[in-house]
Structure formats: C-alpha cells, structure tokens
C-alpha cells in the first residue's frame, strides 16, 4: 500500500535528486558506523583533524561546504573509504571493428582426497657434523 500523493511525487523525482539523497544517507550511516566502531568521540575527531579551536567549532556546527577534500580528510581520520568510484576494466577499440577487453574467469576444480598421503616424519638429528657437506 502506498499513498497516491507519495506515489506521484516519487514518480516525478529527478534522477540526480535520488542520487544525492542516497549518497547523503549512505554517508550519514557510514560515518556514524565508523565513529562507533573506532570508538571516536566528536571532540576527538575534530582534534585529530588538526583544527584550531575556532575551526573546530565551525567544523562541529556545520559551517563548511561539502567538499571532496573534507570528505578525504574525514576518510583519512576514520581509516576507511567513505566514497568509492566504480572502475572499469581496461577496454580498447581495435582497428577494423575488433575490440579487446579483459575478462576474469574463475575455474572450479574438484580435488579428490588422497587416501594415503605421504608423510615425511621429522627426525631429530642428535649430532651435527658440520664437515659432512664438505666436498
């Protein structure tokens, strides 16, 4: 069941707005998780980011714009990536319509268990004659 009003709004939502909100929510949850996992308080985080007291206050009350650099600083302090950019495998177009692409295959091979494995037992050498190997 969904309200008809909500349904209309969802259907008219631009794609860029959807992407922005999803990224926003992912970041909120991710940063909270990392702070909790690493047991870092807000004050510690601000201090770790090497800010002056005035800067820390600004940092804490949100007077900064959302920048890639600040996200990178946060990621560095938290020790984990916050944003990941998808990467494509190398792909090049060849002459005459041929193209080259790199694929990864996984091969599964069934290995039968060995009934009588050859075991080399360890034997302790009581005496070591260092001249044995002298030719």
């Amino acid at each position, binding site marked *: *069941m*969904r*309200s008809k*009003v*909500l349904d*209309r*709004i*969802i259907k*008219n*939502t*631009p794609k860029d*707005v*959807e992407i*922005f*909100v*999803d990224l*926003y*929510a992912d*970041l*909120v*949850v991710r*940063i*909270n998780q990392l*702070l909790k996992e690493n047991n870092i308080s*807000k004050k510690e*985080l*601000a201090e770790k980011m090497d800010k002056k007291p005035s800067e820390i206050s600004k*940092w*804490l*009350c*949100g*007077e*900064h*714009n*959302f*920048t890639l650099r*600040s*996200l990178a600083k946060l990621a560095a302090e938290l020790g984990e990536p916050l944003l990941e950019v998808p990467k494509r495998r190398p792909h090049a177009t060849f002459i005459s319509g041929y193209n080259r692409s790199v694929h990864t295959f996984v091969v599964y091979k069934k290995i039968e268990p060995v009934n009588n494995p050859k075991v080399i037992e360890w034997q302790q050498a009581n005496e070591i004659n260092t001249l044995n190997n002298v030719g």
Partner: protein
Amino acid sequence: MSTFALEIWDDQGTLCTFYTVRKYTGIDAINAESETDKFFIRFADSGDFEDEIHLLARLITENIGNKYGATDDFFTRFENKAHALPPKPGSKVEEIKEFGLDFPLRLFCYRISESIVILFNGGIKNGQTAQESDLSMQFYEAQLFASKIEEALKDEMIKVSKDGRQLLNYDDSTEIIL
C-alpha cells in the same frame, strides 16, 4: 483533542512501514486527506519547495523504508515527544549543509521502532524554534498525536504485530482509531 485514525501511508519498503494520521472532523466525518498527504500536496504544488519535497520523499521511501530502516542516524531532530525529518547533519556529517541545517521544511513524526514510523504534518521552519515558526500549529498537533499514540501503546490498546511491521489493536484488528 479530536479523534484520529492511524493508517498505513507506505509499506512498500523492505524494512520500515510508515503510518500517517487522518483526523476526524465530526462523528463519522473523516478528512479527505491524511496529515502527511496534506504536507506533501501543500509543498509539492507550491512550486517553491518541489526539490525539497522530492528529497524528503526519497529519504523516507528508499533510504529509511528500504535500505537502512528507521535507525538513530535519521532521527536526530528531537521535537519534545515527536521527531522531525530530515535529520540534522550534526558534527559527523557537518559538511552536508544542503540537506541538514539549511533545509527549510520539517515533517514531524513519531518513531515506534526501526520498522514503524508514524508521519504527521509539517511546514516551513522559519524561526529559531519550531514553536516560533509558521509550523507551530503542526508542532503542537504532533505533540498531541505522539502523546496519544504513546499512551495507547503503554495501555496496550494498540500493539506491534509479531513481524514488527504493523500496528494492531489489542484484539488484532487493524482499523486503529485513537
């Protein structure tokens, strides 16, 4: 305070069901629109807040409803007994201003669990506090709705279903009127 019904507003997400309230205006006379629909219609059709309405709708349906559930991450604006959406950025995401400190709209709600949230009405936050803003009426109504729901849960007049996704009367019926 007038009587109101609790009805499902959106339960299509895999993690959270959203309820809304529909006010009774007299004996057996019920409002044509739920309180949450009133909020979305008012701002979606105004032209000035179309983007904000899309942002809120996406946050509610996809991120809270489908991806994370109603976790603490999204309920950081305490409005006495109720909450307000969107969440404020706080120190952890202080850089995300567009969808935090500067967001002009507030939608009041009451979170029962990570799987059930009741959405009310809201408005434009243009004062220091909700009480000083144009949405003061909706703020007071949200407090009354939240108190009555809280009381009904405490008195076991209503309960959460076994799967955690639905509100039921004490006799397992689903038409909830408070």
